[in-house]
């Protein structure tokens, strides 16, 4: 290209309102096809292998094999709900209530303050056709028992919240690694380019904070987008759910008009600088952002749902409306193709004392919203390919603490999954007689991650990213898929 030619092109690109220059027109004028740009230069080999393009590292990518689940909704119960009071009934605790623990107590959070075995103050009753036992803390969830796959044999390594949260979300408790959702969209991209692929609704700021939805050494593109945080009320979040998403100052017309001018400047800038894919990438990013801004807010308009639906999630009750809003928003996002969604019932379940009082209140806040979500997903045909995960960072000890509470127990606790290709009405694994250690079909957090990725059609050992001279993966050097839970 001669200077003279370029100059002419530039001349032809002076902004004239009557003749806005489309990108295509410009490409024609400049004699350059988009395909002639070297797109690969800035992509890591991993990304290339995954089929990502420079312009859109979040483009949907095929999984390693036919997936059971296309997306994940992770309902996180921060603080650590007690398994033996919710999904893992223990006869022995009733019998031996008040007796000492029959074996040495493993490392606990607070070593000083342990009491004897303490039975659950709640009754367990069979739910659904399967008869899967669920305690009276969760009467509504119990109605969905036939959809639940309860894993009673979870094992983690962190006895403190921070370590346990980080391991639950990133696989490791001491080093900062990419979170589960980041790995998922790194592997699969996302289906709706107008929304982030990985969204954390009202996440906790403590115990790892943003690292629990961060991308660590994966490119920033794969980090989770936070919708407010747990310290904010829904009303404080609604109007600007995603930072910078909305503009209150300017009308869409004004913004489009300005954006056309930005792009005009950028085209001219690009025309003077050949062969640089990053310039084109940024031009495209603006177009995508404009579409996002136009289309994403609708996804957050929970108010648009029918009264019946809102009530199904408990939005009509002050006790349930916060988590109900989160669950209903999660369904709206799932429906719109967001790959990985985290809801957080933040830091409530940590009953070192007053187990009864705290757990009763906590369960009231989430029971109806969770059941609402499961029912709603099911009636819309979404449950079959949406993996719903309910988990805390650990369970709680069968021995009492502080008289009427329970300490942390990562050695054997329950989580459940529903939909997304897991067996319903099914209990997997078991803890010992008092519910302290997992003893049967133990599912370490690595195994849980391997299994969740498996359901998404990803082989955990193949989903790697090279960083600092090593191929990292979510499951570190471990992880076994629990095939028995797959339907």
């Amino acid at each position, binding site marked *: 290209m001669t200077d003279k030619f370029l100059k002419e092109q530039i001349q032809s690109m002076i902004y004239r309102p009557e003749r806005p220059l489309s990108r295509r027109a410009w490409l024609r004028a400049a004699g350059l096809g988009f395909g002639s740009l070297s797109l690969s230069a800035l992509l890591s080999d991993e990304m290339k292998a995954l089929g990502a393009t420079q312009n859109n590292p979040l483009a949907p990518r095929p999984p390693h094999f036919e997936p059971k689940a296309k997306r994940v909704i992770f309902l996180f119960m921060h603080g650590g709900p007690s398994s033996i009071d919710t999904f893992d009934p223990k006869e022995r605790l009733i019998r031996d209530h008040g007796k000492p623990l029959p074996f040495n107590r493993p490392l606990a959070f607070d070593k000083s303050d342990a009491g004897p075995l303490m039975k659950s103050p709640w009754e367990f009753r069979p739910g659904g056709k399967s008869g899967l036992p669920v305690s009276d803390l969760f009467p509504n969830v119990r109605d969905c028992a036939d959809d639940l796959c309860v894993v009673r044999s979870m094992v983690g390594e962190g006895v403190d919240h921070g370590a346990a949260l980080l391991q639950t979300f990133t696989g490791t408790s001491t080093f900062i690694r990419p979170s589960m959702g980041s790995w998922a969209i790194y592997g699969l991209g996302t289906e709706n380019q107008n929304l982030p692929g990985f969204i954390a609704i009202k996440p906790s700021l403590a115990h790892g904070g*943003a690292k629990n939805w961060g991308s660590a050494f994966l490119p920033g593109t794969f980090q989770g987008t936070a919708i407010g945080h747990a310290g904010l009320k829904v009303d404080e979040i609604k109007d600007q759910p*995603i*930072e910078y998403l909305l503009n209150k100052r300017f009308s869409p017309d004004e913004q489009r008009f300005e954006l056309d001018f930005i792009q005009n400047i950028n085209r001219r800038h690009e025309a003077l600088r050949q062969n640089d894919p990053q310039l084109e990438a940024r031009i495209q990013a603006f177009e995508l952002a404009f579409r996002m801004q136009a289309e994403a807010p609708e996804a957050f308009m929970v108010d648009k749902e029918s009264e019946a639906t809102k009530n199904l999630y408990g939005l009509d009750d002050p006790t349930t409306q916060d988590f109900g809003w989160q669950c209903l928003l999660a369904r709206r996002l799932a429906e719109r193709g967001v790959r990985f969604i985290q809801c957080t019932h933040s830091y409530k379940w940590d009953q070192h004392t007053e187990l009864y009082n705290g757990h009763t209140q906590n369960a009231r806040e989430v029971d109806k919203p969770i059941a609402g979500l499961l029912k709603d997903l099911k009636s819309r045909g979404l449950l079959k390919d949406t993996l719903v995960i309910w988990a805390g960072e650990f369970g709680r000890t069968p021995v009492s603490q502080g008289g009427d509470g329970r300490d942390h127990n990562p050695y054997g606790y329950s989580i459940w999954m529903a939909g997304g290709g897991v067996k319903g009405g099914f209990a997997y694994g078991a803890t010992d007689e008092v519910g302290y250690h997992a003893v049967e079909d133990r599912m370490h957090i690595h195994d849980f991650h391997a299994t969740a990725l498996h359901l998404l059609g990803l082989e955990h050992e193949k989903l790697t990213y090279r960083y600092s001279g090593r191929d990292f993966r979510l499951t570190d050097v471990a992880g076994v898929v629990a095939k028995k839970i797959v339907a």
Partner: protein
Amino acid sequence: MRPEPNRLRKYIFIAIILGLSIQFLLEYVLISGAAASTEELRVQEAQQAEFFEKRIRPVLTRNCSGCHNPKAQVAGLDLTTAEGFLRGGESGPIFNKERPEQSRILQVIGYEGKLKMPPKGKLKEDEITDIAEWVRMGAPWPGAAPVAAVSEPGKWAGRSTVREFTEQEKKYWAFQSLTHPEVPKVKEQSWVRSPIDGFILSKLEGQNIKPASPAGKETLLRRATFDLTGMPPTEAEIRDFLADDSPDAFKKVVERLLASPRYGEKWGRNWLDVARYADSTGNDEDHRYPYAWKYRDYVIESFNKDLPYDQFVREQIAGDMLPPPNSEGINRRGIIATGFLALGPKAIAQQDKKKMLYDVYDEQVDVTSKAFLGLTISCARCHNHKFDPILTKDYYSMVGIFASTKSFSDPKPLVSQVYYKPLVTKEEYDRYLEKRKAHQKLVRKEQLAIGEIIDTAREQLLATQIGRVAEYMIAARAVYQDKADPASVSREKQLDPEILRRWVEYLKPGRVRLHLLEWDKTDPSNLKTVADKYQAQFNERYAQWVKVLNEWREKYRQSVATNKEASAKPEFDAGKDRFFHEVLFPKGGPFAVSQDDKARFSETELKNLTEWKKKLDELKAQAPQEPEMACAVEDGEIADQKVFIRGDYHNEGEDAPKAFPQIVISSPGGPPQPQISSGSGRLQLANWIADGANPLTPRVMVNRIWQGHFGEGIVRTPDNFGKMGERPSHPELLDFLAWKFIESGWSVKSMHRMIMLSNAYQMSSQADEAAYSADPENRLLSRFNRRRLTVEEMRDALLAIDGSLDLTVGGTLQSGLGTDGENDNKRLSMNPEQLNRRTVYLPLRRANLPSLLNLFDFGDATTASGKRQLTNVATQALFWMNSEFVTERSNNFVRSLMADKNANDESRVKAAYRRIANREALPEEVSSALNYIADYSRKFSSEQSINKAWSSFCRALMASNNFIYVD
């Protein structure tokens, strides 16, 4: 026929086993022969064999051999043969012949320790009993000699991980001594302005690629200014440079920029990425590092004053051990510099405290080796490095240094206490501690006195009210349930109205309380009975409590009389009886008394209270001032480190005396291993890394400097010079630079000069088509690499546009200690959009970095990270379109443009281009802008439409690639 070598080996193996077996068998017969006849022995053997085959082998096969077989040998263990069983695994024997009941296998299958097997679930109780029984028998394994394992502790655990290095490993480029390469001869000698150009051009000529033409002066100035200061050039600087036709015009620019305090802020920040700097611990509790900023300021200052890099290295590892300047008491600067080691992410609420400590040492090994040596030594924590010749022993030899270094003042509490080092002499600090202790004693005394007044008042109240718990409960129920009028109820029953009000408040339903369930569920007919139960329980508890309190008082009086340390005043354990506790203690509880309950005190008591409180406030104000502190390390208890097999501290292996990586030590000409006979070895480590003979240190740093100018290093993996890292594109140039670096006295600024005054640096970022197609990734540097601004540059430059950037140097914006409530907004880092300081000075809460920084690829401040991955994504574009911060910048700027009465529209557009894109606008850009502004104000006319249109234009220019890319 000659046996194949493999088969031969097998024969030899079998022969050895047979030999051993015979020997063991003899031994066995000799020992047991004394106790049993041969016949008995035979019967016993047969029984044992049957037991094994029926009860043991199936269990092993079903549960263990999947992993522990001769092929997989997970953890080095084979449980399919007697030999394997007796040999044990990497962690040592699993069978203890002398004390079978103590065999490790029993702990492991009993799920007693950390290691639990089988991993998928505990064996059935009877299976465990069987195995225990079998082990007690001496683990007879039919078909094999019933033998004693090698059961001396330590023998197997001592199996060394040390191995010989291969020739290839020894010859790996990064471990070779620096060479002093000659500048290559090139055809186009006229292009060679600096030796660097010779190295670059010779490679280009080898590929027949022509270097790009020189960049224009505006481009060069913008490039140099952002590169060295992270800021745009001012209009005056642009004007001056354009007007300066002298041959050393650019040299003057470089000198000016290097002398600017902004230089240290930019290059200091580059180093802070490597030092994974943040102002809190991150991980679990995210406690503030209250003095971290001193390290940050130290780094900035060190770059500004061009502290020789070898000294910079020494100070950061062992500055506290270097002699103080002017021989004053302590090396203040050196202590602060060790913040490098002290400021890493820490999981301080981890309860396995030993593991926590070793995670911290690991982190320190990791950051030290990556930052200075470009080695990933931490990969060898659990096993020898998979790719590089770094042995597990090398790793633990380095861990030993940090295990002998103090990072915590007290690791034991639930939340471990990070160490802060006083920046005064020990004597002075001890004096402070004494004073503080004395002061705290006084404070406690005052508090106690106040507490006693309150307790007495409560006791007086209880004296009349204690018997009326049931009455109050019943009366309260009438109020909250039956809507009775509280005033008339209290009158009628002669109850204290305030206390009744509190009982109502306390008992009314709403919260779930297990201890009040019975009360809540009682039907009216039974009310009295239940209330009496609560009353009785309360009476009993109160009597106990008063007894405890009085006993303590007696003891306290005695200890005061005898001038002894008094025991702390007892506090009621709420978990014991929540009803009692809630009624009596929390502020506002029915029978609680606090300072605010004026009615509960006599006049004298009130007077005393006020006086004591005043005294207490005065006393608190007189608290001795804590001396200045730093987040730093110092030598601690000296550890004799051992290798931890598979990274597990329960599992100690061979000794790992403090030492540095063998592969570097043993490389010809490499820095020798110094003697470390006392102390932590940190000083020796510092000197060894900073030794000019260390082939890695200078290479790694010049590569970082090079990358800071060209966007990519000569080695494109700046923190990893190992096998999995990239090879240098210009190895000779790298060595040449490293050599010159040392020759310059490790002067970083002289490297900037050398690089920036080369033709290579001053090339345009445009090249001809041939160069692009021959080298699309620009590995040979035929052109300059265009780059996106970092988030700091971007934000600082935005603030510079409207002149709102605050250029105050140093100090901290963070206040407070410890951490905050779990979901408190204070857990967030301060919002960069609401502050005007340079970005480098904004405090970073590690767990919740500012979202603006996350958005623009800041990284995560957890590991040494010498290179950011810059992205271009839609969510970033949203920032440009919708951020108030950006609009504010453009509005402010437009106001100043409009205020200039001498300006006209054309000159305003030009001024905007100068301020935002740092260059003169092209004529077509001017007309384009004017068209846009006119059209905008026509289309969206309003009162302020002109300013609004101008603001839109300026914002567009800021959002455009003209601003965020540096050519």
